[in-house]
Protein backbone atom coordinates (compact mmCIF):
# COMPACT_ATOMS: atom_id res chain seq x y z
CA UNK A 1 0.00 0.00 0.00
CA UNK A 2 2.84 2.38 0.88
CA UNK A 3 4.53 1.74 -2.45
CA UNK A 4 1.34 2.55 -4.38
CA UNK A 5 0.93 5.78 -2.43
CA UNK A 6 4.60 6.62 -2.98
CA UNK A 7 4.43 6.12 -6.76
CA UNK A 8 1.16 8.03 -6.95
CA UNK A 9 2.56 11.04 -5.14
CA UNK A 10 5.76 11.13 -7.19
CA UNK A 11 3.65 11.09 -10.36
CA UNK A 12 1.31 13.75 -8.96
CA UNK A 13 4.27 15.94 -7.97
CA UNK A 14 5.80 15.76 -11.45
CA UNK A 15 2.39 16.25 -13.09
CA UNK A 16 1.60 19.32 -10.97
CA UNK A 17 4.94 20.92 -11.82
CA UNK A 18 4.58 20.04 -15.52
CA UNK A 19 0.99 21.28 -15.77
CA UNK A 20 1.78 24.52 -13.96
CA UNK A 21 4.78 25.36 -16.14
CA UNK A 22 2.93 24.32 -19.29
CA UNK A 23 -0.02 26.54 -18.45
CA UNK A 24 2.40 29.44 -17.88
CA UNK A 25 4.00 28.92 -21.27
CA UNK A 26 7.15 26.97 -20.42
CA UNK A 27 6.75 23.66 -22.33
CA UNK A 28 10.44 22.76 -22.11
CA UNK A 29 10.43 23.13 -18.31
CA UNK A 30 7.23 21.11 -18.31
CA UNK A 31 9.00 18.27 -20.12
CA UNK A 32 11.92 18.62 -17.75
CA UNK A 33 9.52 18.21 -14.81
CA UNK A 34 8.21 14.98 -16.28
CA UNK A 35 11.77 13.73 -16.76
CA UNK A 36 12.48 14.68 -13.16
CA UNK A 37 9.47 12.63 -12.05
CA UNK A 38 10.70 9.65 -14.06
CA UNK A 39 14.14 9.92 -12.47
CA UNK A 40 12.60 10.04 -9.01
CA UNK A 41 10.56 6.94 -9.78
CA UNK A 42 13.69 5.11 -10.92
CA UNK A 43 15.50 6.23 -7.74
CA UNK A 44 12.58 4.97 -5.65
CA UNK A 45 12.64 1.65 -7.51
CA UNK A 46 16.41 1.37 -6.94
CA UNK A 47 15.85 2.35 -3.28
CA UNK A 48 18.35 5.19 -3.40
CA UNK A 49 18.03 6.66 0.04
CA UNK A 50 19.40 10.12 -0.71
CA UNK A 51 17.36 10.69 -3.87
CA UNK A 52 14.12 11.61 -2.06
CA UNK A 53 15.74 14.48 -0.15
CA UNK A 54 17.30 15.86 -3.30
CA UNK A 55 13.99 15.51 -5.14
CA UNK A 56 12.13 17.37 -2.38
CA UNK A 57 14.60 20.22 -2.39
CA UNK A 58 14.51 20.36 -6.20
CA UNK A 59 10.71 20.51 -6.10
CA UNK A 60 10.76 23.36 -3.56
CA UNK A 61 13.25 25.30 -5.71
CA UNK A 62 11.24 24.60 -8.87
CA UNK A 63 8.00 25.65 -7.15
CA UNK A 64 9.59 28.85 -5.85
CA UNK A 65 10.96 29.73 -9.28
CA UNK A 66 7.61 28.89 -10.81
CA UNK A 67 5.82 31.31 -8.50
CA UNK A 68 8.35 34.01 -9.36
CA UNK A 69 7.95 33.55 -13.13
CA UNK A 70 4.20 33.63 -12.92
CA UNK A 71 3.12 30.01 -12.79
CA UNK A 72 -0.22 29.67 -10.93
CA UNK A 73 0.80 29.21 -7.24
CA UNK A 74 -1.91 26.55 -6.65
CA UNK A 75 -0.07 24.04 -8.84
CA UNK A 76 3.25 24.86 -7.21
CA UNK A 77 1.72 24.46 -3.75
CA UNK A 78 0.26 21.09 -4.78
CA UNK A 79 3.63 19.97 -6.16
CA UNK A 80 5.38 20.91 -2.89
CA UNK A 81 2.79 19.06 -0.85
CA UNK A 82 2.97 15.91 -3.01
CA UNK A 83 6.77 15.99 -2.85
CA UNK A 84 6.63 16.24 0.93
CA UNK A 85 4.33 13.22 1.14
CA UNK A 86 6.48 11.20 -1.27
CA UNK A 87 9.59 12.14 0.70
CA UNK A 88 8.00 10.95 3.93
CA UNK A 89 6.70 7.74 2.38
CA UNK A 90 10.19 6.92 1.13
CA UNK A 91 11.45 7.03 4.71
CA UNK A 92 8.48 5.05 5.96
CA UNK A 93 8.96 2.36 3.34
CA UNK A 94 12.60 2.11 4.33
CA UNK A 95 11.60 1.74 7.98
CA UNK A 96 9.13 -1.03 7.12
CA UNK A 97 11.88 -3.03 5.45
CA UNK A 98 13.49 -3.29 8.90
CA UNK A 99 10.37 -4.88 10.36
CA UNK A 100 9.84 -8.61 10.83
CA UNK A 101 7.11 -10.20 8.74
CA UNK A 102 5.08 -11.04 11.86
CA UNK A 103 4.94 -7.39 12.95
CA UNK A 104 1.68 -5.51 12.50
CA UNK A 105 2.79 -3.96 9.20
CA UNK A 106 -0.72 -3.46 7.86
CA UNK A 107 -1.73 -1.59 11.03
CA UNK A 108 1.39 0.56 10.95
CA UNK A 109 0.80 1.41 7.30
CA UNK A 110 -2.87 2.18 7.81
CA UNK A 111 -2.25 4.50 10.76
CA UNK A 112 0.62 6.26 9.04
CA UNK A 113 -1.28 6.90 5.80
CA UNK A 114 -4.33 8.14 7.70
CA UNK A 115 -2.18 10.51 9.74
CA UNK A 116 -0.41 11.72 6.61
CA UNK A 117 -3.67 12.34 4.79
CA UNK A 118 -5.04 14.44 7.65
CA UNK A 119 -1.78 16.37 7.82
CA UNK A 120 -1.78 17.01 4.06
CA UNK A 121 -5.35 18.26 4.18
CA UNK A 122 -4.52 20.61 7.07
CA UNK A 123 -1.45 21.91 5.25
CA UNK A 124 -3.45 22.44 2.06
CA UNK A 125 -6.17 24.33 3.92
CA UNK A 126 -3.70 26.55 5.76
CA UNK A 127 -1.78 27.26 2.57
CA UNK A 128 -4.92 28.16 0.67
CA UNK A 129 -5.77 30.95 3.12
CA UNK A 130 -3.06 33.42 1.96
CA UNK A 131 -4.04 32.73 -1.65
CA UNK A 132 -7.62 33.68 -0.95
CA UNK A 133 -7.01 36.53 1.48
CA UNK A 134 -4.53 39.11 0.33
CA UNK A 135 -2.99 41.09 3.16
CA UNK A 136 -0.99 44.26 2.89
CA UNK A 137 2.25 43.74 4.79
CA UNK A 138 3.63 46.78 6.57
CA UNK A 139 7.28 47.77 6.76
CA UNK A 140 7.49 46.60 10.39
CA UNK A 141 6.34 43.11 9.33
CA UNK A 142 8.99 43.00 6.62
CA UNK A 143 11.59 43.98 9.23
CA UNK A 144 10.38 41.21 11.53
CA UNK A 145 10.52 38.63 8.74
CA UNK A 146 14.05 39.81 7.87
CA UNK A 147 15.07 39.38 11.51
CA UNK A 148 13.59 35.87 11.65
CA UNK A 149 15.39 35.00 8.41
CA UNK A 150 18.71 36.26 9.80
CA UNK A 151 18.28 34.19 12.96
CA UNK A 152 17.39 31.19 10.84
CA UNK A 153 20.47 31.56 8.65
CA UNK A 154 22.63 31.87 11.76
CA UNK A 155 21.03 28.67 13.10
CA UNK A 156 21.75 26.85 9.83
CA UNK A 157 25.41 27.95 9.97
CA UNK A 158 25.63 26.66 13.54
CA UNK A 159 24.13 23.29 12.52
CA UNK A 160 26.62 22.99 9.68
CA UNK A 161 29.48 23.70 12.08
CA UNK A 162 28.16 21.17 14.60
CA UNK A 163 27.68 18.49 11.96
CA UNK A 164 31.33 18.95 10.90
Amino acid at each position, binding site marked *: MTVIFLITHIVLDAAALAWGYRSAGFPSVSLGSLAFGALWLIAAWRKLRWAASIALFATVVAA*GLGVLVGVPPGWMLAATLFALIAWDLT*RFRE*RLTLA*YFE*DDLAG*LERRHLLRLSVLAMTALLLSSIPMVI*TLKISFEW*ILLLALVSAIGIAQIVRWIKL*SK
Partner: protein
Amino acid sequence: MSYYQYPFPSCPDSVSRTFLLTCSIYLLLFASLVFLNADLLGLVLPILVFLLYGWWSAPKDGGLYVRRRFSSERLTVGEPVEVSVSIINNGSHLNEALIEDLIPVGLSLISGSPRHVISLVTGEEFIFRYRLRGNRGACAMGSLKVTTTDPLGLFPRSYLLGTAGNLIVFPRVLPLGRIAIRPRRTRLYAGSIPARVGGTGLEFFGVRDFQPGDPPRVINWRASVRRSSGLPEGNLAANTRNVNLKLISNQYLQERVADVGIVLDGRELSNWMAGESLFEKSVMASASLADAFLKLGNRVGLLVYGQYLDWTPPAYGKLQRERILQSLARARLGSSSVFAGLDGISTRMFPAESQIVLVSPLVNEDWSILVRLRSHAYQVLVLSPDPLAFEYSHLRRSAELDVALRMARLERKLLIRKLERAGIHVIEWDVSKPFEQVVQSQLMRYRPVGSQGYIP
Protein backbone atom coordinates in the same frame (compact mmCIF):
# COMPACT_ATOMS: atom_id res chain seq x y z
CA MET B 1 16.00 -8.39 37.28
CA SER B 2 17.53 -4.91 37.06
CA TYR B 3 16.82 -2.35 34.38
CA TYR B 4 18.93 0.57 33.33
CA GLN B 5 18.71 3.12 30.62
CA TYR B 6 21.14 5.61 29.17
CA PRO B 7 21.01 7.97 26.21
CA PHE B 8 22.50 7.14 22.86
CA PRO B 9 23.47 9.81 20.28
CA SER B 10 20.72 10.61 17.81
CA CYS B 11 21.29 9.21 14.38
CA PRO B 12 22.67 11.74 11.84
CA ASP B 13 19.80 11.08 9.42
CA SER B 14 17.39 12.95 11.74
CA VAL B 15 19.52 16.10 11.54
CA SER B 16 19.61 15.97 7.77
CA ARG B 17 15.81 15.59 7.52
CA THR B 18 14.96 18.50 9.81
CA PHE B 19 17.84 20.43 8.30
CA LEU B 20 16.43 19.93 4.81
CA LEU B 21 12.97 21.18 5.81
CA THR B 22 14.39 24.17 7.70
CA CYS B 23 16.62 25.08 4.76
CA SER B 24 13.66 24.91 2.41
CA ILE B 25 11.60 27.17 4.68
CA TYR B 26 14.33 29.77 5.01
CA LEU B 27 15.07 29.67 1.31
CA LEU B 28 11.45 30.44 0.48
CA LEU B 29 11.26 33.11 3.18
CA PHE B 30 14.41 34.74 1.89
CA ALA B 31 13.19 34.64 -1.69
CA SER B 32 9.83 36.13 -0.70
CA LEU B 33 11.62 39.02 1.00
CA VAL B 34 14.05 39.62 -1.81
CA PHE B 35 11.42 39.51 -4.55
CA LEU B 36 8.65 40.90 -2.32
CA ASN B 37 6.38 38.04 -3.40
CA ALA B 38 3.73 36.97 -0.87
CA ASP B 39 2.80 33.83 -2.86
CA LEU B 40 6.13 32.31 -1.94
CA LEU B 41 5.04 32.47 1.70
CA GLY B 42 2.19 30.15 0.79
CA LEU B 43 4.71 27.51 -0.23
CA VAL B 44 6.33 27.76 3.20
CA LEU B 45 3.19 26.73 5.03
CA PRO B 46 2.97 23.00 4.13
CA ILE B 47 6.63 22.51 5.02
CA LEU B 48 6.14 24.43 8.24
CA VAL B 49 3.10 22.32 9.11
CA PHE B 50 5.12 19.12 8.60
CA LEU B 51 7.98 20.41 10.73
CA LEU B 52 5.75 21.62 13.55
CA TYR B 53 3.72 18.40 13.59
CA GLY B 54 6.90 16.34 13.82
CA TRP B 55 8.20 18.50 16.67
CA TRP B 56 4.85 18.36 18.50
CA SER B 57 4.47 14.59 18.23
CA ALA B 58 8.11 13.73 18.97
CA PRO B 59 8.33 11.00 21.65
CA LYS B 60 9.28 12.00 25.15
CA ASP B 61 12.21 10.40 26.94
CA GLY B 62 11.93 7.45 29.31
CA GLY B 63 9.16 5.14 30.29
CA LEU B 64 10.28 2.22 28.23
CA TYR B 65 11.39 -0.87 30.13
CA VAL B 66 12.76 -4.13 28.88
CA ARG B 67 13.09 -7.63 30.32
CA ARG B 68 14.96 -10.42 28.60
CA ARG B 69 14.68 -14.12 29.46
CA PHE B 70 16.54 -17.15 28.17
CA SER B 71 15.21 -20.67 27.97
CA SER B 72 18.60 -21.70 29.34
CA GLU B 73 21.63 -19.68 30.35
CA ARG B 74 24.00 -22.62 30.00
CA LEU B 75 24.39 -24.19 26.59
CA THR B 76 26.66 -26.52 24.77
CA VAL B 77 28.01 -25.80 21.31
CA GLY B 78 25.24 -26.10 18.72
CA GLU B 79 22.40 -26.16 21.25
CA PRO B 80 19.66 -23.57 20.53
CA VAL B 81 18.38 -21.12 23.10
CA GLU B 82 15.12 -19.19 22.96
CA VAL B 83 15.34 -15.54 23.89
CA SER B 84 12.17 -13.84 25.00
CA VAL B 85 12.16 -10.04 25.17
CA SER B 86 9.37 -8.10 26.81
CA ILE B 87 9.05 -4.32 26.38
CA ILE B 88 6.67 -2.31 28.51
CA ASN B 89 5.77 1.28 27.67
CA ASN B 90 5.08 3.23 30.84
CA GLY B 91 5.67 6.56 29.12
CA SER B 92 3.91 8.44 26.38
CA HIS B 93 2.35 6.88 23.29
CA LEU B 94 4.95 5.70 20.77
CA ASN B 95 3.82 6.01 17.17
CA GLU B 96 6.77 4.23 15.71
CA ALA B 97 9.61 2.43 17.47
CA LEU B 98 12.36 0.31 16.04
CA ILE B 99 13.50 -2.33 18.52
CA GLU B 100 16.80 -4.07 17.91
CA ASP B 101 18.22 -6.63 20.30
CA LEU B 102 21.96 -6.47 19.82
CA ILE B 103 23.32 -9.98 19.40
CA PRO B 104 26.93 -10.29 20.49
CA VAL B 105 29.61 -11.83 18.31
CA GLY B 106 29.69 -15.59 18.70
CA LEU B 107 25.93 -16.06 18.67
CA SER B 108 23.98 -16.63 15.47
CA LEU B 109 20.29 -16.32 14.75
CA ILE B 110 18.38 -19.54 13.93
CA SER B 111 14.80 -18.35 13.73
CA GLY B 112 12.67 -15.33 14.56
CA SER B 113 13.99 -11.81 14.47
CA PRO B 114 15.69 -9.62 17.06
CA ARG B 115 14.43 -6.51 15.22
CA HIS B 116 10.86 -5.23 15.15
CA VAL B 117 9.00 -2.09 14.16
CA ILE B 118 6.16 -1.51 16.58
CA SER B 119 3.67 1.02 17.84
CA LEU B 120 3.06 1.07 21.59
CA VAL B 121 0.37 2.90 23.50
CA THR B 122 0.88 3.79 27.15
CA GLY B 123 0.89 0.70 29.37
CA GLU B 124 1.11 -1.73 26.46
CA GLU B 125 3.53 -4.64 26.48
CA PHE B 126 5.20 -6.11 23.43
CA ILE B 127 6.84 -9.52 23.56
CA PHE B 128 8.98 -11.06 20.86
CA ARG B 129 10.97 -14.27 20.74
CA TYR B 130 13.82 -15.56 18.67
CA ARG B 131 16.23 -18.47 18.78
CA LEU B 132 20.00 -18.34 18.86
CA ARG B 133 22.84 -20.77 18.60
CA GLY B 134 26.26 -20.08 19.99
CA ASN B 135 29.90 -20.80 19.50
CA ARG B 136 31.92 -21.72 22.56
CA GLY B 137 32.41 -18.80 24.92
CA ALA B 138 30.76 -16.47 27.37
CA CYS B 139 28.46 -13.82 25.90
CA ALA B 140 26.95 -10.87 27.70
CA MET B 141 23.71 -9.74 26.04
CA GLY B 142 23.42 -6.38 27.67
CA SER B 143 21.72 -3.94 25.38
CA LEU B 144 18.63 -3.48 23.33
CA LYS B 145 18.61 -0.53 20.94
CA VAL B 146 15.37 1.37 20.72
CA THR B 147 14.82 4.12 18.17
CA THR B 148 11.62 6.06 18.76
CA THR B 149 10.44 8.74 16.41
CA ASP B 150 7.56 11.00 15.54
CA PRO B 151 5.25 9.77 12.74
CA LEU B 152 7.22 11.75 10.13
CA GLY B 153 10.62 10.53 11.27
CA LEU B 154 11.88 14.06 11.83
CA PHE B 155 12.95 13.81 15.46
CA PRO B 156 14.14 10.27 16.12
CA ARG B 157 15.86 9.38 19.35
CA SER B 158 17.90 6.29 20.05
CA TYR B 159 18.47 4.61 23.41
CA LEU B 160 20.26 1.57 24.60
CA LEU B 161 18.03 -0.24 27.04
CA GLY B 162 20.05 -2.71 29.03
CA THR B 163 19.08 -5.73 31.01
CA ALA B 164 21.38 -8.29 32.53
CA GLY B 165 21.67 -11.38 30.41
CA ASN B 166 24.63 -13.70 30.25
CA LEU B 167 24.93 -16.80 28.18
CA ILE B 168 27.73 -19.27 28.52
CA VAL B 169 28.33 -21.80 25.80
CA PHE B 170 30.31 -24.77 27.00
CA PRO B 171 32.32 -27.06 24.76
CA ARG B 172 30.83 -30.43 23.93
CA VAL B 173 31.58 -33.13 26.47
CA LEU B 174 31.72 -36.60 25.00
CA PRO B 175 30.99 -39.51 27.32
CA LEU B 176 34.19 -41.52 27.64
CA GLY B 177 34.54 -44.77 29.46
CA ARG B 178 37.32 -45.69 31.85
CA ILE B 179 40.66 -44.13 31.03
CA ALA B 180 43.59 -46.21 32.16
CA ILE B 181 46.36 -44.14 33.71
CA ARG B 182 48.99 -45.12 36.24
CA PRO B 183 50.71 -42.22 37.93
CA ARG B 184 53.47 -43.11 40.36
CA ARG B 185 51.72 -41.55 43.29
CA THR B 186 48.06 -41.80 44.17
CA ARG B 187 45.99 -40.19 46.85
CA LEU B 188 44.53 -41.82 49.94
CA TYR B 189 40.95 -42.21 48.89
CA ALA B 190 39.63 -45.26 47.11
CA GLY B 191 39.29 -44.86 43.40
CA SER B 192 39.95 -46.69 40.17
CA ILE B 193 43.66 -46.23 39.60
CA PRO B 194 45.90 -49.08 40.71
CA ALA B 195 48.30 -47.85 43.41
CA ARG B 196 51.67 -49.44 44.15
CA VAL B 197 50.35 -50.68 47.48
CA GLY B 198 48.94 -54.08 48.31
CA GLY B 199 45.44 -54.30 49.65
CA THR B 200 41.96 -54.88 48.36
CA GLY B 201 41.48 -54.47 44.68
CA LEU B 202 41.15 -56.44 41.47
CA GLU B 203 44.64 -56.78 40.03
CA PHE B 204 47.09 -59.22 41.62
CA PHE B 205 49.93 -57.56 43.53
CA GLY B 206 51.70 -60.30 45.53
CA VAL B 207 51.39 -62.77 48.43
CA ARG B 208 51.96 -62.57 52.17
CA ASP B 209 51.39 -64.70 55.24
CA PHE B 210 47.80 -65.26 56.22
CA GLN B 211 46.67 -62.94 58.95
CA PRO B 212 43.66 -63.46 61.21
CA GLY B 213 40.75 -61.64 59.73
CA ASP B 214 41.70 -62.34 56.11
CA PRO B 215 38.64 -63.63 54.24
CA PRO B 216 38.99 -67.23 53.03
CA ARG B 217 38.67 -66.18 49.40
CA VAL B 218 42.04 -64.39 49.49
CA ILE B 219 43.92 -67.55 50.60
CA ASN B 220 46.26 -68.71 47.87
CA TRP B 221 45.95 -72.49 48.35
CA ARG B 222 48.62 -73.47 45.90
CA ALA B 223 51.20 -71.23 47.52
CA SER B 224 50.04 -72.38 50.96
CA VAL B 225 50.62 -76.03 50.03
CA ARG B 226 54.05 -75.26 48.66
CA ARG B 227 55.04 -73.40 51.84
CA SER B 228 53.59 -76.03 54.19
CA SER B 229 55.50 -79.10 55.45
CA GLY B 230 54.45 -82.63 56.53
CA LEU B 231 51.60 -82.99 54.16
CA PRO B 232 50.99 -86.67 53.35
CA GLU B 233 50.72 -87.65 49.76
CA GLY B 234 47.47 -89.19 48.62
CA ASN B 235 44.72 -89.31 51.25
CA LEU B 236 44.88 -86.10 53.28
CA ALA B 237 42.53 -87.45 55.93
CA ALA B 238 44.88 -90.33 56.75
CA ASN B 239 47.42 -88.55 58.93
CA THR B 240 47.26 -84.88 59.67
CA ARG B 241 48.97 -84.93 63.06
CA ASN B 242 52.41 -83.79 61.85
CA VAL B 243 51.18 -81.27 59.30
CA ASN B 244 52.59 -77.75 59.59
CA LEU B 245 50.19 -75.77 57.41
CA LYS B 246 51.31 -72.28 56.57
CA LEU B 247 48.57 -70.26 54.90
CA ILE B 248 49.43 -67.64 52.32
CA SER B 249 47.09 -64.84 51.34
CA ASN B 250 46.90 -63.00 48.03
CA GLN B 251 47.38 -59.27 47.96
CA TYR B 252 45.81 -57.08 45.35
CA LEU B 253 46.71 -53.67 44.01
CA GLN B 254 44.85 -51.05 45.93
CA GLU B 255 42.76 -48.79 43.71
CA ARG B 256 42.84 -45.16 44.63
CA VAL B 257 42.20 -41.78 43.15
CA ALA B 258 45.01 -39.74 41.64
CA ASP B 259 45.94 -36.22 40.74
CA VAL B 260 45.50 -35.42 37.08
CA GLY B 261 46.66 -32.17 35.55
CA ILE B 262 45.31 -31.39 32.08
CA VAL B 263 47.32 -28.91 30.04
CA LEU B 264 45.52 -27.44 27.05
CA ASP B 265 47.85 -25.96 24.47
CA GLY B 266 46.34 -22.66 23.30
CA ARG B 267 49.35 -21.33 21.43
CA GLU B 268 48.63 -19.96 17.98
CA LEU B 269 51.88 -21.31 16.57
CA SER B 270 50.88 -24.89 17.29
CA ASN B 271 47.14 -24.67 16.59
CA TRP B 272 46.74 -22.38 13.61
CA MET B 273 47.36 -23.87 10.19
CA ALA B 274 46.02 -23.35 6.65
CA GLY B 275 43.79 -20.59 7.94
CA GLU B 276 41.96 -22.99 10.26
CA SER B 277 42.40 -23.81 13.90
CA LEU B 278 42.60 -27.13 15.69
CA PHE B 279 41.88 -25.45 18.98
CA GLU B 280 38.17 -26.25 19.14
CA LYS B 281 38.99 -29.95 18.79
CA SER B 282 41.57 -29.67 21.57
CA VAL B 283 39.07 -27.90 23.82
CA MET B 284 36.46 -30.58 23.23
CA ALA B 285 39.01 -33.31 23.97
CA SER B 286 40.13 -31.55 27.18
CA ALA B 287 36.55 -31.18 28.36
CA SER B 288 35.77 -34.84 27.69
CA LEU B 289 38.95 -36.03 29.43
CA ALA B 290 38.37 -33.78 32.45
CA ASP B 291 34.83 -35.06 32.73
CA ALA B 292 35.94 -38.68 32.52
CA PHE B 293 38.69 -38.25 35.12
CA LEU B 294 36.39 -36.43 37.51
CA LYS B 295 33.69 -39.05 37.15
CA LEU B 296 36.23 -41.65 38.28
CA GLY B 297 36.76 -39.63 41.44
CA ASN B 298 40.15 -38.17 40.61
CA ARG B 299 41.40 -34.75 41.56
CA VAL B 300 41.71 -32.78 38.34
CA GLY B 301 43.28 -29.43 37.50
CA LEU B 302 43.41 -27.55 34.22
CA LEU B 303 46.01 -25.27 32.75
CA VAL B 304 45.14 -23.38 29.58
CA TYR B 305 48.47 -22.45 28.09
CA GLY B 306 48.19 -19.68 25.50
CA GLN B 307 48.62 -15.93 25.65
CA TYR B 308 48.67 -16.29 29.43
CA LEU B 309 48.28 -19.09 31.93
CA ASP B 310 44.73 -19.77 33.01
CA TRP B 311 45.09 -22.14 35.92
CA THR B 312 42.24 -24.01 37.57
CA PRO B 313 43.71 -25.63 40.70
CA PRO B 314 43.04 -29.35 41.21
CA ALA B 315 39.87 -30.36 43.03
CA TYR B 316 37.23 -33.08 43.03
CA GLY B 317 33.64 -33.41 41.97
CA LYS B 318 30.90 -31.63 40.07
CA LEU B 319 31.88 -28.18 41.23
CA GLN B 320 35.34 -28.69 39.76
CA ARG B 321 33.75 -29.95 36.55
CA GLU B 322 31.82 -26.68 36.36
CA ARG B 323 34.99 -24.65 37.00
CA ILE B 324 36.90 -26.51 34.32
CA LEU B 325 34.10 -26.19 31.77
CA GLN B 326 33.82 -22.47 32.47
CA SER B 327 37.55 -22.08 31.99
CA LEU B 328 37.37 -24.05 28.74
CA ALA B 329 34.42 -21.95 27.57
CA ARG B 330 36.56 -18.82 27.98
CA ALA B 331 39.72 -20.35 26.51
CA ARG B 332 41.10 -18.51 23.50
CA LEU B 333 44.04 -18.98 21.20
CA GLY B 334 46.85 -16.56 21.87
CA SER B 335 50.40 -15.76 21.02
CA SER B 336 52.96 -14.52 23.44
CA SER B 337 56.73 -14.37 23.29
CA VAL B 338 56.83 -15.40 26.95
CA PHE B 339 54.76 -18.52 26.43
CA ALA B 340 55.94 -19.43 22.94
CA GLY B 341 57.43 -22.65 24.32
CA LEU B 342 55.96 -24.99 26.89
CA ASP B 343 58.70 -24.10 29.39
CA GLY B 344 56.21 -21.88 31.20
CA ILE B 345 54.62 -25.02 32.68
CA SER B 346 55.71 -24.99 36.28
CA THR B 347 56.11 -28.24 38.19
CA ARG B 348 54.75 -26.39 41.23
CA MET B 349 51.32 -26.46 39.68
CA PHE B 350 51.08 -30.23 39.65
CA PRO B 351 51.55 -32.52 42.67
CA ALA B 352 54.73 -34.57 42.54
CA GLU B 353 54.62 -37.82 40.55
CA SER B 354 51.07 -37.14 39.38
CA GLN B 355 49.57 -37.64 35.94
CA ILE B 356 49.89 -34.86 33.39
CA VAL B 357 47.76 -34.96 30.25
CA LEU B 358 48.88 -32.55 27.56
CA VAL B 359 46.41 -31.84 24.76
CA SER B 360 48.48 -30.31 22.01
CA PRO B 361 49.22 -30.67 18.30
CA LEU B 362 52.91 -30.52 19.36
CA VAL B 363 55.80 -28.68 17.80
CA ASN B 364 59.37 -29.95 17.69
CA GLU B 365 60.54 -27.63 20.44
CA ASP B 366 58.12 -29.21 22.95
CA TRP B 367 60.17 -32.37 23.16
CA SER B 368 62.72 -31.11 25.70
CA ILE B 369 60.05 -29.69 28.03
CA LEU B 370 58.04 -32.91 28.05
CA VAL B 371 61.14 -34.96 28.76
CA ARG B 372 61.98 -32.58 31.61
CA LEU B 373 58.51 -33.16 33.07
CA ARG B 374 59.02 -36.89 32.70
CA SER B 375 62.33 -36.63 34.49
CA HIS B 376 60.49 -35.09 37.43
CA ALA B 377 58.69 -38.44 37.73
CA TYR B 378 55.42 -37.20 36.25
CA GLN B 379 53.48 -39.69 34.21
CA VAL B 380 52.91 -37.81 30.96
CA LEU B 381 50.22 -38.58 28.44
CA VAL B 382 50.08 -36.52 25.26
CA LEU B 383 46.90 -36.38 23.25
CA SER B 384 47.88 -34.83 19.97
CA PRO B 385 45.31 -33.80 17.35
CA ASP B 386 47.14 -34.55 14.12
CA PRO B 387 48.01 -31.17 12.57
CA LEU B 388 49.32 -32.67 9.34
CA ALA B 389 46.17 -34.55 8.41
CA PHE B 390 44.12 -31.50 9.41
CA GLU B 391 46.18 -29.11 7.29
CA TYR B 392 46.31 -31.52 4.39
CA SER B 393 42.52 -31.74 4.32
CA HIS B 394 42.32 -27.95 3.94
CA LEU B 395 44.87 -27.57 1.12
CA ARG B 396 44.60 -28.12 -2.59
CA ARG B 397 46.15 -31.44 -3.63
CA SER B 398 49.39 -31.39 -5.63
CA ALA B 399 52.47 -33.53 -6.07
CA GLU B 400 54.59 -31.01 -4.18
CA LEU B 401 52.14 -31.06 -1.30
CA ASP B 402 52.34 -34.85 -1.09
CA VAL B 403 56.11 -34.72 -0.88
CA ALA B 404 55.96 -32.00 1.76
CA LEU B 405 53.44 -34.06 3.72
CA ARG B 406 55.69 -37.11 3.66
CA MET B 407 58.61 -35.08 4.94
CA ALA B 408 56.55 -33.49 7.66
CA ARG B 409 55.11 -36.88 8.58
CA LEU B 410 58.62 -38.29 8.99
CA GLU B 411 59.62 -35.38 11.17
CA ARG B 412 56.54 -35.84 13.35
CA LYS B 413 57.07 -39.59 13.65
CA LEU B 414 60.60 -38.93 14.80
CA LEU B 415 59.33 -36.51 17.44
CA ILE B 416 56.75 -38.99 18.69
CA ARG B 417 59.30 -41.81 18.78
CA LYS B 418 61.67 -39.66 20.83
CA LEU B 419 58.86 -38.90 23.25
CA GLU B 420 57.87 -42.54 23.54
CA ARG B 421 61.45 -43.52 24.26
CA ALA B 422 61.33 -41.12 27.17
CA GLY B 423 58.30 -42.97 28.50
CA ILE B 424 55.68 -40.51 27.32
CA HIS B 425 52.52 -42.03 25.97
CA VAL B 426 51.49 -40.17 22.81
CA ILE B 427 48.09 -40.66 21.22
CA GLU B 428 47.74 -39.25 17.75
CA TRP B 429 44.22 -38.21 16.90
CA ASP B 430 43.19 -37.69 13.32
CA VAL B 431 40.43 -35.17 13.93
CA SER B 432 38.39 -36.51 11.02
CA LYS B 433 37.72 -39.54 13.24
CA PRO B 434 35.47 -39.41 16.31
CA PHE B 435 37.37 -38.60 19.47
CA GLU B 436 35.65 -41.23 21.60
CA GLN B 437 36.60 -43.92 19.11
CA VAL B 438 40.29 -42.97 19.37
CA VAL B 439 40.16 -42.81 23.15
CA GLN B 440 38.37 -46.10 23.53
CA SER B 441 40.85 -47.93 21.34
CA GLN B 442 43.96 -46.47 22.95
CA LEU B 443 43.13 -45.48 26.50
CA MET B 444 40.74 -48.11 27.79
CA ARG B 445 43.63 -50.36 28.78
CA TYR B 446 46.93 -49.29 30.19
CA ARG B 447 49.76 -49.64 27.72
CA PRO B 448 53.25 -49.27 29.14
CA VAL B 449 55.48 -47.14 26.94
CA GLY B 450 59.31 -47.34 26.88
CA SER B 451 61.49 -48.38 29.77
CA GLN B 452 60.58 -45.50 32.08
CA GLY B 453 56.91 -45.82 31.44
CA TYR B 454 56.67 -49.42 32.47
CA ILE B 455 55.31 -50.17 35.89
CA PRO B 456 56.52 -53.57 37.14
